[in-house]
């Protein structure tokens, strides 16, 4: 049997060799630069750690290899009245991509586990927590982070307190190696400057035209066709920030979901968000 040492997770802070010192006597510019680069690499948290790949080379490059798996992300429903259903589906897809168990905390636990199971979160991987306040939801996320692969906290009434809390969550998520998701119940009137690595707005993508739907006949008629979600990347760090807002499409996933993979495709022209779709095309061409 071929025994290989397990690959060590690349964590920026787990082991830090001492920076190479410039040779004594004559100061060497190259060595000084090298030392500076090293200190930058060990202090900058972004850009490291495992990624959830989208499978699209353009997006993956923009996002630095995919969505940061050990980080905090924010999910907003679109401003339509019933977008919290699709937002929950996206959160479940992301959490399922993280692999392992997920804690789902909310003040109003109206999620339907069979639906989340279709999004990849099997009941054996789901732990639910009913909280009394939004602050308790965040505390529960923090508490559980070291023992589960992903935490999802649904926030009903965000306030300025969320900004400071998001900084704590982001730090804990990167340290514990957990995917943390703040799921907003409603589209907030003003966007808070949270410390989340990315912020996504989720809208239902309408079903394709009747001719396409005819290819997916349901039991009682033309059928609806597979469900797609229109995702607008509203905020991100790194190179993606230059291309915002960026609208992508989350097709119904292949089953079972592969870990660390979330297939995203460019939004169809004439889709849910017309303006954002062009940005997506531009990225696809890049």
């Amino acid at each position, binding site marked *: 049997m071929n025994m290989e040492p397990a690959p060590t997770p690349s964590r920026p802070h787990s082991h830090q060799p001492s920076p190479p010192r410039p040779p004594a006597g004559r100061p060497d510019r190259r060595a000084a630069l090298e030392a500076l680069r090293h200190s930058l690499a060990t202090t900058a948290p972004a850009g490291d750690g495992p990624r959830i790949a989208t499978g699209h080379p353009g997006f993956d490059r923009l996002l630095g290899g995919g969505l940061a798996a050990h980080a905090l992300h924010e999910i907003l429903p679109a401003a*339509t009245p019933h977008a919290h259903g699709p937002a*929950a589906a996206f959160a479940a897809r992301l959490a399922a991509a993280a692999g392992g168990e997920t804690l789902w905390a909310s003040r109003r636990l109206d999620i339907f586990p069979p639906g989340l199971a279709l999004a990849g979160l099997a*009941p054996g991987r789901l732990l*639910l927590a009913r909280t009394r306040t939004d602050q308790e939801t965040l505390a*529960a996320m923090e*508490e559980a982070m*070291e023992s589960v692969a992903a935490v999802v906290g649904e926030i009903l009434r965000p306030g300025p307190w969320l900004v400071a809390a998001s900084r704590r969550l982001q730090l804990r998520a990167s340290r514990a190696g957990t995917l943390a998701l703040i799921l907003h119940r409603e589209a907030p009137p003003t966007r808070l400057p949270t410390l989340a690595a990315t912020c996504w707005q989720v809208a239902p993508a*309408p*079903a394709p035209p009747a001719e396409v739907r005819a290819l997916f006949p349901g039991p009682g008629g033309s059928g609806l066709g597979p469900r797609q979600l229109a995702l607008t990347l509203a905020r991100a760090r790194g190179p993606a920030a230059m291309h915002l807002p960026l609208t992508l499409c989350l097709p119904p996933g292949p089953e079972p979901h592969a870990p660390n993979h979330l297939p995203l495709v460019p939004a169809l022209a004439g889709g849910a968000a017309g303006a954002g779709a062009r940005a997506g095309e531009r990225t696809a061409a890049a």
Partner: protein
Amino acid sequence: MERLARARAQANEPPLPEPLVLGTRRGSRREVAACSAAAAALGIRPGEPLAAACARVPGLQVAEAEPEADRAALTRLARWMQARISPLVALDPPDGLWLESAGASHLFGGEQRLLQRLLARLAASGITARAGLAETAGAAHALARFAPGACTIAPPHTTAEAIAPLPVAALRLQAGEAQALARLGIASIGDLLALPRAALGRRFGLALLRRLDQALGQAGEPLDHLPHETARAAAIMLAEPVAHAAALHGLIDRLAPQLARLLERRGEGARALDLLFHRIDGTIAALRAGTAAPTREPAHIARLLHLLVEDVDPGFGIEMAVLACPRAAPLAPRQLGTGPDPATLAEVADRLSARLGPGAVFRVAPRPGAFPEATVAHAPPGHPAAGSWPRHLPRPTRLLDPPERIEAIAMLPDRPPAAFRWRGRRHRVRAADGPERMHAAWWEAGADPNAVRDYFTVELEDGTRLWLYRSGDGEDPDSGDFGWHVQGLFG
């Protein structure tokens, strides 16, 4: 009376014939100590001379009362309550128990739920019980015995108002005092409170005033709490009392390893933990924590208690701390360094439960229910569910509970509506899929076996997909009223 019935039932003996009374001897006369419901319906009251009762009710069955056996049964019940309900239980002979609800009611979802579950549990064991909850032992005693309902809770700071309408006998008066008060026209505790205190003291003595003060919380009443069994308890006596919170955390850190060693020697893990702080004024502050899986990890025990200890008021100072384990389960020794620790998720579940309350952290499991809301079962956090729901049927990510009625018109028997009105707004259906027919749970008692629902997935103009159903199969009015409902929101 009920102890007798339970004992006979356990011994497989036939129940004693009715109407039944228990006789006891007081001085030279025999009187009725207790009577069955059938005897009470015939007008027999405890305290009545036995000869008079026998003369009035021909065929009255008399059995001998056994006060020692009653007391032993009461102690057994108290032990059970100490393990299951509250860490602080005191006997109130001949027929009462005092339970301290502070520090324990959070495990049951509040005081009301605690009392209801307690009474239901006792009723299931054949014990008729009444419960009262108040800020003082005296008021709780009065409410439990004399309040009109079987389960009465006096809200905080309203003890005097709560006991005012009760008769004066509720104050645990000595024999004769209640009759003397009644002769003066003082029937209720409210009448008594309206009288000048000095005059009352002169006329009836200090005992009456003391009972009144104890009921109102103006005089202390030390209760003789049942001691914990010492086999699973660790204690620290302090030479100097401590009164600040940091010291309490320090006590927990010292007690947890002690208890863990005790449990390890017994091969057990704790399922419940009691932390008792004895204050120097004789009162006890008690906390109870539950665990999702048996544990004897000192760090985990300490963390659970650290979360709860914030609520403890040290008062004048704490001179002794006891950490006891009233409920334990076998826990095999674990080898160190063999793979990931399986207990960590259970530990997180415990900590979350301690923070959020009991039942707030749970898992879900598939359940063979008929309608969607019945297909999800809640499971304790320690047991990951196996299996899943069918993968080929559309299911929403959010469920409206209860389903919301909408105004819709659709062709019978199997077409979705083209438009409907929901929450005051009109929605047009762009595309639809369905129906998926679900039949009622005919195998479950209480369900209408004929009920049918036809589920449709509809997509609105803005892309929102909703899960609608029509109750009834569209043909047979017995299967439902053909009304339309929204039950879910797709992802």
